[in-house]
């Protein structure tokens, strides 16, 4: 080890520390921006010192690759719409997984060549050089995990992007049996590859099968569970990077990869808990408890009162306090700016307006915060569930926009419902509830909502954005 190597190693340690500080910073609102910068700095340090590595001979390909990659990455990151963030993360994650597959591939290719040469020179030796097996195992793990991450992330991306062909899971018989068979094949190829260190093709086959496995694993999972899946795949891509670290005997890869792998698992668990789902259920695509105990008819028949923009405007006229409950439908309708306009109008009428943010409203954690922040609605106006729940009793009008499950009182009453036990926003306690949605169709959990049939509830049917614009127009007219 010459002095340069020592400096490179120390720089890797610095960048590993920066990654740790990055993750730590990202867990607190006050330090999150700085944390992210630490992470970027860590990456920069790691890349720069790597360029000084003695083993790097050609710089042409490297500079080309860096430039192209940075261009694509920056373009996507800057151009993407705020509401498309989750699928963007999925896509990036997939790229990371693929990169691990390729790196492991390149190294194992060279390794197989090395082993062949060793055997050619001395045909009598029966075993490959020391360390070969360890490198092989690490490389195969990197390829396997990376490939599953890649194809799985692409499916997750397609589902979140609501690409037609992927909206419903592909249906084919014996899903679990096929997954089992694929896993067996993977195992067999793994053993084969380890026992024939001179061949590269088992690695290629393994990767291809792993790609298929990634598809079949993520395919049956519903679009709404994708955030959890992405968090899990993110953890995987960390593990894949750590595995390549073992192949290359590189500490920063091992540390950063295993950091992401471990913290990703914790984050996955936290997200599952916030959505009241268990990880096994997410992964096997099962909704907790099957059937709703009540049919739509029983719940709604004859009890639903529909309303219009003018009528709601009149309600607001006499209101002093309004709470707005945004849900997934707000994101679908892209109505965040319309909500801001409505808020401004209501405030100009001296009405106190607050937003009730349910932790799992929408389809990703913090979805509503991101959405409303994009429309520049002041942070102080967004109240978390625990804070706002006691105040519904003093609220004149609660306006529910495209939310359903998070205001479904069944969670409190029916222990058999899929959302049983999930804390909900107690909108039914307010004087009047107005719900904006397109129809009576259910939300993510697929169950009817007795709120819509409650005495103090009015349904304002229509697309979220259109309904809001109607409402604003009606309000302005009456002013």
């Amino acid at each position, binding site marked *: 080890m010459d002095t340069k190597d020592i400096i490179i190693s120390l720089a890797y340690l610095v960048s590993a520390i920066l990654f740790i500080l990055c993750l730590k910073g990202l867990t607190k609102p006050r330090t999150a921006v700085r944390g992210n910068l630490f992470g970027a700095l860590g990456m920069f340090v790691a890349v720069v010192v790597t360029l000084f590595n003695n083993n790097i001979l050609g710089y042409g390909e*490297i500079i080309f690759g860096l430039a192209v990659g940075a261009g694509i990455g920056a373009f996507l990151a800057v151009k993407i719409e705020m509401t498309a963030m989750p699928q963007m993360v999925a896509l990036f*994650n997939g790229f990371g997984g693929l990169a691990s597959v390729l790196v492991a591939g390149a190294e194992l290719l060279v390794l197989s060549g090395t082993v062949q040469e060793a055997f050619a020179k001395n045909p009598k030796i029966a075993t490959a050089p020391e360390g070969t097996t360890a490198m092989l195992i690490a490389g195969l793990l990197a390829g396997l995990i990376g490939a599953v991450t890649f194809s799985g992330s692409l499916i997750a991306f397609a589902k979140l992007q609501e690409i037609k062909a992927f909206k419903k899971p592909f249906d084919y018989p014996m899903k679990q049996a096929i997954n089992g068979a694929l896993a067996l094949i993977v195992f067999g190829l793994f053993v084969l590859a380890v026992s024939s260190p001179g061949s590269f093709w088992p690695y290629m086959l393994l990767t291809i099968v792993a790609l298929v496995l990634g598809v079949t694993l993520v395919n049956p999972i519903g679009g709404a569970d994708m955030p959890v899946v992405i968090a899990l795949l*993110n953890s995987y891509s960390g593990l894949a990077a750590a595995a390549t670290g073992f192949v290359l005997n590189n500490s920063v890869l091992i540390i950063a990869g295993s950091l992401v792998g471990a913290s990703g698992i914790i984050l996955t668990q*936290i997200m599952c808990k916030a959505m009241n789902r268990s990880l096994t259920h997410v992964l096997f695509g099962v909704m907790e408890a099957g059937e709703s105990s009540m049919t739509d008819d029983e719940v709604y028949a004859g009890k639903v009162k529909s309303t219009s923009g003018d009528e709601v405007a009149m309600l607001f006229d006499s209101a002093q306090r309004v709470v707005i409950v945004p849900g997934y439908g707000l994101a679908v309708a892209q109505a965040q700016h319309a909500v801001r306009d409505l808020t401004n109008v209501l405030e100009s009428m001296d009405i106190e307006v607050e937003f009730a943010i349910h932790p799992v409203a929408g389809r*990703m954690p913090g979805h509503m915060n991101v959405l409303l922040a994009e429309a520049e*609605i002041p942070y102080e106006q967004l109240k978390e569930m625990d804070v706002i729940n006691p105040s519904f009793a003093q609220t004149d009008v609660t306006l529910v926009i495209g939310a359903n499950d998070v205001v479904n009182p069944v969670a409190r009453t029916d222990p058999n419902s899929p959302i049983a036990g999930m804390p909900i926003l107690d909108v039914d306690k307010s004087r009047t509830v107005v719900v904006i949605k397109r129809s009576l169709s259910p939300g993510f959990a697929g169950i009817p909502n007795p709120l819509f049939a409650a005495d103090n509830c009015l349904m304002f049917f229509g697309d979220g954005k259109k309904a809001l614009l109607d409402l604003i127009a009606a309000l302005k007219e009456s002013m």
Partner: protein
Amino acid sequence: MGLLAVITAGELLAGITVFVLAVFVGFEIITKIPPTLHTPLMSGSNAISGITLVGALLSAGADHGFLATTLGTAAVIMATVNAVGGFLVTNRMLEMFRKKK
């Protein structure tokens, strides 16, 4: 086609030790996170997993023959997208929260 440095048992053991410790750091560092930060945290740690870039650079630059170099260069592109895009997207999300405060 060049030869590859193989790892010794000692290096492997050191790697495993580092791995285990880093896993503990990863487990411990994340305890409570406000829901708002779930997505940025996911995105930021996803960007960190772009560290494969270091491996990709070594593969692409090592001059181990055309195929290995091509694989390495493709890996450099992919990993750079992951890292650069990841940190930028995370920053964009966070900036949005910040300017409201």
